[in-house]
Each structure stands twice: as structure tokens, then as C-alpha cells.
């Protein structure tokens, strides 16, 4: 069962040195308001767990945490979109933990699903072999990776009812998986509706996984924000 709180209250759940999963995919479907609050609160030494870096070019969404030097460790599959992040990694200001993207996803899923490890053939014959334990099953080689679990997950959904049942729009990408894999799960949503308004089949994340609901930008506001971003970066 979830509780609706303000972004100001929600950001207090994240402490210096917290590990924080951030939903979204390279800037899309990210919890923009919660990230802004984390920047405003100057929470330090964060371990950020995100499938990739922020929007291309840096300085947008998660890129703000980078510019503000709030990150000590980054667990991800891809940092290529944010030159500032790469610079801080090269300068050893940020520790980087990489895995292939599908492996990253399964590690987070395993963290939420109580599984002991991820066993995948992806990465065999590459440097990724150094990032995991190699095991042999029926004479075939696999890599064994450990699950990922976080102190806090901040995720983005379209809307929520007051029980924390979440509905997604479009590509939900990492959000439903990360909703399962943290001690405290904060969902930022476009709108909050009455219980029963979201049909049982339309619920992408049941409220059992969600602790706090935060009103984010409305859908119309997000549409404006993204159109402006896409136009200014020549994508629309």
C-alpha cells in the first residue's frame, strides 16, 4: 500500500551514500521532478543504478546529478550519451560498474524477484568475462552475475491510484523492473486517480511494490518539455 507525499518529502528518503535506482531509458520516461529535487537537495556520494546515462549531450535529467557531482558510483550498461559522466569516470571521480544491457536488466529483475544470480551466455569471448564468474553447464560456457538491489528506486509511470497501482504509457522500459528491486520505491506520476479507475488488466505495477506516490509534471507539461528538448536537439 502506498502513501502520497510531496516531492520534498519523498527526496528525504534518499540519503548521502544511498544507492538509488532511476527508471527510464537514456532520458525517456525518467522521474524528472524527483531528479530535480535530488539536485536541489545536493544529496552526495550516491550510487546511481540506471540502464544508461541521461539524455544525449548531458546536463539533462540524470545528467544534472553528474554536473552537480553528486555521484560516487554508476551501475549501468551505457554511459555514451553523457560526456560529463565519461569525464568524471576517466578522472576516477566516479566508479563505473558495467554489464551488458540485457544482463543489467536481469540483475535488477533478480534483485526484485529473490533469485540468486543471473546466468547468461552474453559476453562470453569478450572482456565481460572479467566482470563475472564463468560457469559451465552441459559443456557450454556462461557468465554468472549477482543481483542488483537498491536502497531507493525512483520510477516514472503514467498514473497511479491511491493504493500505488501504476499504469504505464508507451515504452515502460526499466520502470516496472526497478519498481520491484529497492527497499523504498517512489513512483512519480502524471496523475493520481481514484481506486478502481485503473482496470485490473491495465495495471503494470501492482501497488504492493510501491511505497510512495509523488505527483510529477502532468502529461501535457511533459509533452511540452520533451517537444522543446527534441526540437532544440534536432530530433523533431
Amino acid at each position, binding site marked *: 500500500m502506498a502513501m502520497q507525499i510531496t516531492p520534498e518529502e519523498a527526496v528525504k528518503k534518499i540519503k548521502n551514500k544511498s544507492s538509488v535506482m532511476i527508471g527510464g531509458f537514456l532520458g525517456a520516461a525518467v522521474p524528472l521532478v524527483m531528479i530535480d529535487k535530488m539536485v536541489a537537495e545536493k544529496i552526495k556520494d550516491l550510487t546511481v543504478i540506471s540502464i544508461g546515462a541521461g539524455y544525449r549531450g548531458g546536463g539533462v535529467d540524470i545528467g544534472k546529478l553528474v554536473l552537480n557531482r553528486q555521484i560516487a558510483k554508476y551501475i549501468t550498461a551505457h554511459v555514451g550519451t553523457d560526456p560529463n559522466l565519461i569525464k568524471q569516470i576517466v578522472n576516477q571521480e566516479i566508479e563505473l560498474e558495467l554489464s551488458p544491457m540485457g544482463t543489467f536488466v536481469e540483475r535488477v529483475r533478480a534483485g526484485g524477484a529473490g533469485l540468486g544470480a543471473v546466468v547468461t551466455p552474453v559476453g562470453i569471448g569478450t572482456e565481460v568475462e572479467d566482470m563475472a564468474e564463468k560457469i559451465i553447464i552441459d559443456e557450454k560456457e556462461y557468465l554468472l552475475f549477482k543481483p542488483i538491489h537498491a536502497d531507493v528506486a525512483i520510477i516514472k509511470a503514467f498514473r497511479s491510484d491511491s493504493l500505488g497501482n501504476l499504469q504505464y504509457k508507451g515504452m515502460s522500459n*526499466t520502470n*516496472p523492473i526497478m519498481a520491484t528491486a529497492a527497499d523504498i520505491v517512489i513512483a512519480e506520476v502524471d496523475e493520481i486517480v481514484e481506486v478502481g479507475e485503473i482496470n485490473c488488466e491495465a495495471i503494470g505495477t501492482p501497488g504492493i511494490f510501491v511505497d510512495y506516490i509523488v505527483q510529477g509534471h502532468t502529461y501535457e507539461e511533459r509533452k511540452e518539455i520533451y517537444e522543446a528538448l527534441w526540437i532544440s536537439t534536432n530530433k523533431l
Partner: protein
Amino acid sequence: MPKNYIAKRIAKEFKDGMYVNLGIGIPTESANYIPEGTHVYLQTENGGLMFGPKPQRGESNPDIANAGAEPITMLPGGAVFDVATSFAMIRGGHIDMTVVGALEVDQEGSIASWKIPGKLLTGMGGAMDLLYGCKEVIVAMTHTDKYGKAKIRKKCTLPLTAAGVADLIITDKAVFRVNKDGLYLEELAPGVTASEVKQLTEAEIVNIKEWE
């Protein structure tokens, strides 16, 4: 060289009903040349199948984007899902073909595309899953790098993205098939000679004699 030669040549590999994941750059461009009457279903690893071109301004949807977070549209029959489903689809062998760029590819079909030690440090993203899981792997790239150095090698010198996975190599000079016993020249680009290709290719071309 005809304009967009590589992208147009990739498009000839599309068969009706194929599910395809296209890498950024030239591979993505190839979608503009899908032959009339051929239906190709595009997958994007952030969680979408059957997407279409970018929307008009004012008609974008902040939650409909490709793997580069750029606005796209969904076609009728398109589906959206989360990344666990997306990578299950990729790694589980459900996608017919992927077309990717590369820094190097070698005669064993190994591909290097994600890292140049000390220079390019972006992380592998979804490339390793795609190259492992997709049924057919096409590498599309310029034949040589900007210094004129061969990118098709006996053995990749850069860190691999996947070992022994490439099926077809399409460059601005030629098309090669990677078989178990090595690299076979299949086609020369317009105006390109076999000896030119031989000279610009470090890898051994098994059937080069047939072309000379």
C-alpha cells in the same frame, strides 16, 4: 559511389515478415529503403515493436521513443513492453536480424564496436545481447577507417563485442559472407575491383581467386 549505397544495399536483405533491430546511423537509415510490398517489423530495445517514422511537431508522445530517446511513432499492430521482455526477445533468439555498425570485424565473424581502450569508453549497451541473440547478424560499415586502414581483419585488435557472430558484411566496397571456413566475397560495389578490395582488406578472402 552512389549516395547512401550501404543503406540501400542493407535494405536488399530485408525479407517480408522479418523482425529486425537496426543499430544507429547507417543501419537505421536503411529502413528508408525497405522494398515496396515487404513488411519489416522494427524492434527497439527500450521496449517497442513495429515503430514508424518520427512524428510531426506537436504530435509527439513523451513516452514513445526509440533506444536513443528520440521521438518515434507506433504503427498499427505495434506493441510496447518493458526491457525485461525486450531483452528476453533479443537474447532468446526471437529477432530475425540485426544490422550494426562496427569498428572492426574479422574473418571469424567476431565484431569489435564498443570500446577503444583510452579513447572510446561508452559501455556496451545492448550490443552484446543483440549480437548474441539475433538469428542473423549483418555488419554495415565503411570498408576502411578515416586513415584508410582496413577494418576487416584477420583478427580484431580491439575489445570484442561478440565472438564469431557476423553472417554478412556490407561496406562501401563489397559484400562478404562469413562462413565457418572464412570470409567469402559475394559482391563488389559499383566501380570497385577485386584487387582494390583485396588490398583494402586485411582478412583473407577465401574465394578471391574467383574474382581476380
